């Protein structure tokens, strides 16, 4: 892993000849399969990569992609985006978050709009940069609005650790960390679900390990292959899924072996466990309430929890999407973005109405941006 250079990335994992050879092999296995197969790529990074590189254009007719819920800002319900907006609008607050969050509109506007109204909103590449911001602004309350799946959670946990150990009294947290396996189960349980197999997330699995997907072959008879984000990775993953079907196997496999192990990053897992616990419920935009699918600070760290400190300011009543929005159907594979009446008309990336149009990793945004040229 440490020796992977950028050059290898381009010449290896995006090599046209390798891509064409893999497509040939996929065609042979798909032909052998002899029926339709619906593969969900759970992670938004995969959706982005598939549509950006046009991999769906290379697939035989019987292979269908279902674009999953794995974009953390897409699935964040509007009422929580409003929390970020409201916190940012407090005159003594600096709201710090990751870049992905800045453009996402809630019911009042996005953080970008809040900033235009005078709010102090900053994005960081590393959450630990929040320490510097807090040090430079001792008279301000710095609130870290934490987003992301298992991938970004350890970074937030590391920041919590620093705040506690160094007794920093002006950093607080609004936690929106969510976990991958629970929505996968909900989508499989849905009556209209067409999902036959999963492409497992890359970066999430680096942290949590591929072990978190064991339940899918065991309890749902649905195979999972954890893939990297490059075109060759994804195609190889699809090939592995097809071979499982044709060999009558159903298991968790890792294609992304250069980064993912079954156990994952144990140090990061321990760090998460030290500071966070599961929430009973969390509402996912486009899907609904999912039990045990998100994290919150443990009770003993409640004094750092902006959601509790500012509870009067942060209403939690549900704000639903446009009635005609079919994001829920899209996430289940029951519909395609192009089938939505709002797609590309009322709903575009610069004024999204539903979750899948919100970030470039959402299915609708990816289709809109790159055109669905199958």
């Amino acid at each position: 892993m440490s020796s992977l250079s950028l050059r290898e990335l381009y010449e290896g994992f995006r090599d046209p000849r390798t891509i064409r050879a893999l497509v040939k092999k996929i065609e042979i296995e798909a032909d052998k399969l002899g029926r339709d197969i619906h593969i969900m790529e759970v992670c938004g990074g995969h959706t982005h990569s598939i549509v950006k590189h046009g991999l769906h254009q290379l697939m035989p007719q019987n292979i269908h992609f279902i674009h999953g819920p794995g974009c953390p800002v897409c699935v964040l319900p509007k009422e929580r985006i409003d929390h970020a907006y409201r916190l940012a609008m407090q005159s003594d607050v600096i709201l710090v978050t990751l870049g992905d969050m800045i453009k996402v509109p809630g019911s009042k506007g996005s953080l970008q709009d809040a900033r235009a109204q005078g709010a102090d909103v900053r994005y960081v590449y590393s959450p630990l940069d929040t320490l510097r911001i807090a040090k430079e602004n001792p008279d301000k309350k710095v609130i870290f609005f934490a987003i992301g799946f298992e991938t970004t959670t350890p970074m937030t946990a590391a920041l919590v650790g620093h705040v506690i150990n160094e007794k920093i009294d002006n950093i607080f947290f609004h936690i929106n960390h969510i976990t991958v396996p629970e929505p996968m189960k909900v989508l499989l349980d849905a009556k209209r679900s067409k999902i036959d197999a999963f492409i497992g997330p890359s970066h999430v699995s680096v942290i949590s390990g591929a072990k978190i997907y064991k339940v899918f072959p065991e309890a749902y008879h649905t195979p999972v292959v954890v893939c990297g984000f490059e075109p060759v990775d994804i195609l190889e993953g699809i090939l592995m899924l097809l071979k499982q079907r044709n060999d009558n196997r159903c298991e968790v496999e890792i294609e992304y072996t250069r980064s993912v192990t079954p156990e994952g990053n144990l140090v990061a897992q321990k760090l998460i466990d030290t500071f966070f616990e599961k929430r009973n419920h969390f509402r996912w935009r486009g899907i609904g309430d999912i039990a045990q699918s998100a994290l919150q600070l443990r009770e003993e760290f409640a004094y750092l929890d902006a959601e509790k400190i500012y509870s009067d300011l942060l209403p939690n009543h549900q704000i639903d999407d446009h009635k005609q929005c079919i994001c829920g159907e899209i996430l289940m594979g029951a519909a395609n973005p192009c089938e939505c009446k709002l797609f590309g008309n009322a709903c575009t990336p610069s004024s999204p109405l539903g979750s899948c149009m919100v970030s470039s990793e959402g299915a609708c945004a990816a289709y809109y941006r790159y055109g669905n040229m199958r």
Partner: protein
Amino acid sequence: MKSITLAHGNGGEENGRLIEELFYKHFHNPILEQAEDAALIEKGRLAFATDSFTVTPLFFKGGDIGKLSICGTCNDLAMMGAKPKYLTCAVIIEEGFEMPLLEKIVLSMRSELEKNGAIIVSGDTKVVPKGSVDKLFINTTGIGEIRYQGISANTLSPDDVIIISNSIGKHGATIFLEREGMEFSTALESDCRSLWPVVEKLIEANIRIKAMRDATRGGIAAVLNEWAKQSDICIEVEEENVPVSPEVKGVCELLGFEAFSLANEGTFLIAVDPEDALKTVELLRSMEASCMAKVIGKVTNRHPRKVLLKTPYGTTRFLELPSGELLPRIC
């Protein structure tokens, strides 16, 4: 109440809408509506352009705000086939700005003016209280003398060949890294430079230039989309032919950017008659400023008003106008 956000200045979708729905609406006239890099005035004998400069940091690898302020306006003139001649210079300075820094910037402007054979003929200075501007804003406005007629973003036609003068995205990547204090590579620097010397050679060689535009804010994605819309044609680009340096590729990989949308300050797109394509590339490659020149695509009728990006493994996608503010993607 709607208000201006940083996205309105991105050179992409929101920026375009603001210009059309506010400025064009109220200022409309036939010259403005041509929407060229520089306006053609006095029966097409002169080109007239303006540009304002605000950049953080003021000094960056490969240039500074002074060099940028001359290159920007002079390049807009050069891209219309005009020799930059007379410029005005207006500066808005924040109280407390250090005098030696200001002189360094002015000297940098002088040196760049010499490369263009242009002079500053009028100026204005304003000093404002601390906090009213971010250190220093510069506006330059320039007049150039047209040496080649007929360059326009509105008249590209099928079979025209699209050429890029150099590898893309270096200015945008450099500024982003410096602003965020990220140190990755010492080899990466802005492509900021004056283009008139290159354009002059193209004109002397009798190249039939259809359109020319420096790919500043919004990158080549913005220019190609503007051309496709303004000329009602499709531009098909071969992705593997677009030169991107390993350093820029690295920044894009890490931060989730597209090199196509990153700003350039000395790299331009040129559309030429197909018969002149080879000659143009050879001539461009003979000059240091455009040594990586390459044919990247051509004009067709396939999807009017769209830009198509074709991969070497047979897939196709739209290259969209960049939208929103440039933000790193983490998750």
